[in-house]
């Protein structure tokens, strides 16, 4: 009866018409968009097509100085004097506008970042709004947060965020800072500035007092200027361990407070009694979510040797159903790699993996001819000594290692300079607790992976950084 049982999903693109991208953007300083002093600019492109989306200003040291001055003025004259209750009203208002404009933000995020619309729509934007809602609730209760009877804000916070979750990382940074009474100068990543600039419009829409939030766009130089600025009281950074080290060096000897959220090489440990189908989902979600551009990605799969073949077989079958392609298509599971530079890094490390003797596998998939793409990839036969088991690839590349006993699993999982996150898969509750207790990682997920919630603190051990973001703990970095 059936000619062919082929259920081809027709393209289901989300409309671009919901978002209005300007041809060029200034810097958001003192509540207004202003031209940069030096007049320099750069282009931001869609990594899926390499199409130029907009021209964005490059903030010089002088521009950063103006932004910090605006933030200082807003801090001393308005924001630090305002009651927590009043501050919370603004945060609640921003949260509601984020929800109201969620579709616009999601489309813009997918365009500028390359991530699938289903992620920006179902994860990034709702979580960003949730962070503002959550910290809005803290603004008038800080004296009950456990950090002393009369906690005070720090002043001006300089914040530098990465390109993997542009709007969400902005929310992680700005919401707690503002709730505690600080003002901010924030720099989005140079490849993904657009949602931060739309957020600037949202601050205007929310009637946020001018200067409380300042957005300066630019590359590394702009970030350095923020970090080094002498009137910045607090530096918050999310990004690579390499840049994190530079920042730590820059602020050493000053009285700036610092939180760093850096790289990771998380172990996802699958024991032989794991719920196997859900574990496979968790492995996929752990490494292919957001093209693997996740600092807490489960990039090292540690699977018990007795079930390794079966888990791998199921994993490969599942990977073959992943849909790679147009980020705006609602059925896309894996989108574009964020930049040519990142793609080159992923390619290079994958080649190293092959040359070191690991076996590489990817499902058959047609990649678009334009833009930056890398297929979901798994390396088997990886050992602790391989570079792909030690270095953060920050792409859709999974390294599979095996273990024999729970002790060996924990030893291997902890044998890394990082320590941001880890996953444990087993049906046995006592084993979850035993393993989680022994893992040196800031977040340990049990029978799930890559789940985020504003009430839950997030942060790392060792080279994964210091300080916690999210939850009650996230307030600590912004008060004294």
């Amino acid at each position, binding site marked *: *009866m*059936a000619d062919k*049982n*082929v*259920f*081809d*999903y*027709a*393209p*289901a693109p989300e409309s671009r018409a919901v978002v209005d991208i300007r041809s060029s953007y200034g810097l958001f300083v003192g509540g207004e968009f202003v031209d940069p002093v030096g007049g320099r600019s750069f282009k931001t492109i869609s990594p899926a097509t390499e199409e130029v989306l907009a021209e964005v200003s490059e903030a010089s040291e002088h521009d950063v100085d103006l932004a910090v001055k605006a933030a200082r003025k807003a801090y001393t004259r308005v924001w630090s004097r305002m009651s927590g209750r009043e501050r919370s009203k603004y945060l609640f208002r921003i949260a509601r506008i984020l929800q109201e404009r969620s579709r616009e933000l999601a489309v813009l995020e997918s365009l500028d970042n390359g991530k699938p619309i*289903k992620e920006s729509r*179902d994860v990034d934007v709702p979580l960003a709004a949730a962070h503002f809602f959550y910290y809005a609730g803290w603004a008038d209760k800080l004296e009950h947060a456990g950090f002393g009877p009369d906690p005070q804000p720090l002043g001006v916070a300089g914040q530098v965020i990465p390109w993997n979750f542009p709007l969400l990382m902005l929310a992680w940074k700005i919401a707690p800072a503002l709730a505690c009474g600080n003002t901010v100068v924030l720099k989005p990543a140079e490849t993904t500035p657009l949602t931060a600039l739309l957020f600037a419009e949202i601050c205007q829409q929310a009637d946020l007092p001018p200067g409380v939030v300042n957005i300066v766009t630019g590359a590394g130089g702009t970030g350095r200027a923020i970090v080094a600025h002498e009137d910045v009281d607090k530096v918050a950074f999310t990004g690579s361990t390499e840049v994190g080290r530079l920042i730590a060096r820059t602020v050493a000897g000053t009285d700036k407070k610092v939180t760093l959220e850096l790289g990771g090489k998380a172990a996802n440990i699958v024991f*032989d*009694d*794991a*719920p*196997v*189908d*859900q574990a496979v*989902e*968790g492995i996929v979600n752990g490494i292919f979510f957001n093209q693997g551009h996740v600092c807490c990605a489960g990039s090292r799969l540690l699977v018990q040797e*007795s*079930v390794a*073949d*079966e*888990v791998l077989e199921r994993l490969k079958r599942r990977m073959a*159903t992943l849909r790679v392609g147009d980020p705006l298509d*609602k*059925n896309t599971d894996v989108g574009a790699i964020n930049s040519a530079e990142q793609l080159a890094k992923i390619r290079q490390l994958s080649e190293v993996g092959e040359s070191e003797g690991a076996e590489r596998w990817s499902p058959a998939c047609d990649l678009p001819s334009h833009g930056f793409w890398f297929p979901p990839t798994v390396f088997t036969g990886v050992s602790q000594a391989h570079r792909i088991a030690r270095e953060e690839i920050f792409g859709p590349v999974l390294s599979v290692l095996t273990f024999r006993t729970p002790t060996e699993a924990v030893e291997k999982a902890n044998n890394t300079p990082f320590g941001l996150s880890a996953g444990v898969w087993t*049906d046995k509750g006592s084993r979850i607790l035993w393993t989680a207790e022994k893992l040196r990682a800031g977040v340990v997920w049990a*029978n*799930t992976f890559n789940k985020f919630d504003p009430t839950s603190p997030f942060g790392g051990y060792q080279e994964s950084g210091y300080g916690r973001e999210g939850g009650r703990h996230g307030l600590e970095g912004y008060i004294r």
Partner: protein
Amino acid sequence: MLKPVTPPPSSTAATAPSPAEPADLPVHLAEATGSDAALRRFLHGLPGVDQVGAEARAASLGTRSIKTTAKEFALDLAIRMVDLTTLEGQDTPGKVRALCAKAVRPDPADPGCPSVAAVCVYPDMVGTARQALGASGVHVASVATAFPSGRAALDVKLADTRDAVEAGADEIDMVIDRGAFLAGRYQQVYDEIVAVREACGDAHLKVIFETGELQTYDNVRRVSWLAMLAGAHFIKTSTGKVQPAATLPVTLVMLEAVRDFREATGRMVGVKPAGGIRTAKDAIKYLVTVNEVAGPDWLDPDWFRFGASTLLNDLLMQRTKMATGRYSGPDYFTLD
């Protein structure tokens, strides 16, 4: 422990539908069915199902966006997979004949509209349905074995089954003894399925679990394997008489089971969610799940069915909307 199953080389031949024969099971599976203890060891040795993860996976499959040509394909396929059902105390020959007419030509206004897969009735209505359907190609399915509770002696259940088969049923939808399953008397459940399968003769056997009563996904996975080992041609979620009836996560777990069973044995078993699927939108979510979990081989009325009554009209309305660009009111579609 995960089940130590390595797919035999024969699994490549599995794409060709093969009739279920309990006798041709691989040794380690055949040995699993020797006693209560052996069945218990095997079924409880299956990998567990994490409730949160299974539900999250089903929900994410439910977000697939099926448009235009894909939607046309899915709607026609879903219509061809419907087991148009009436299982009421008030059923009469007149009602069943009307339902049969609808089954053969669901949309009188469009001769291009496919027929449904089967009409599903109580055993005493099988003769009427058989006569009404004639050579239309639409199958007659009958519930049996003291449907819906299954609370009767085995010989009563077998007589019920034989009655329906003799009256012309092509497919028998039996219910398992949920009490026995929940009490751990797996061998009894297994033996009953084997006996009913024998009583079916050439008719295909669908085994209804009533997952709303079994409650946990672990139970759903275990009972799926139990029924498949016993020779079921189809495994079916529910009678429609207990809430919750079919859900997407339950169907997902059953689809994983038939997929794994084919890997282990080379045999394909069909899946039928029944009860509670009322909209075309829901039906499409099920088809997406079939496609991505069990695989495209199951996208066929021989391997996947919807037990439903009101679903058909929503499928027809959406189908007409796809063709004409307009929604017609419910009055433009026949009641039955």
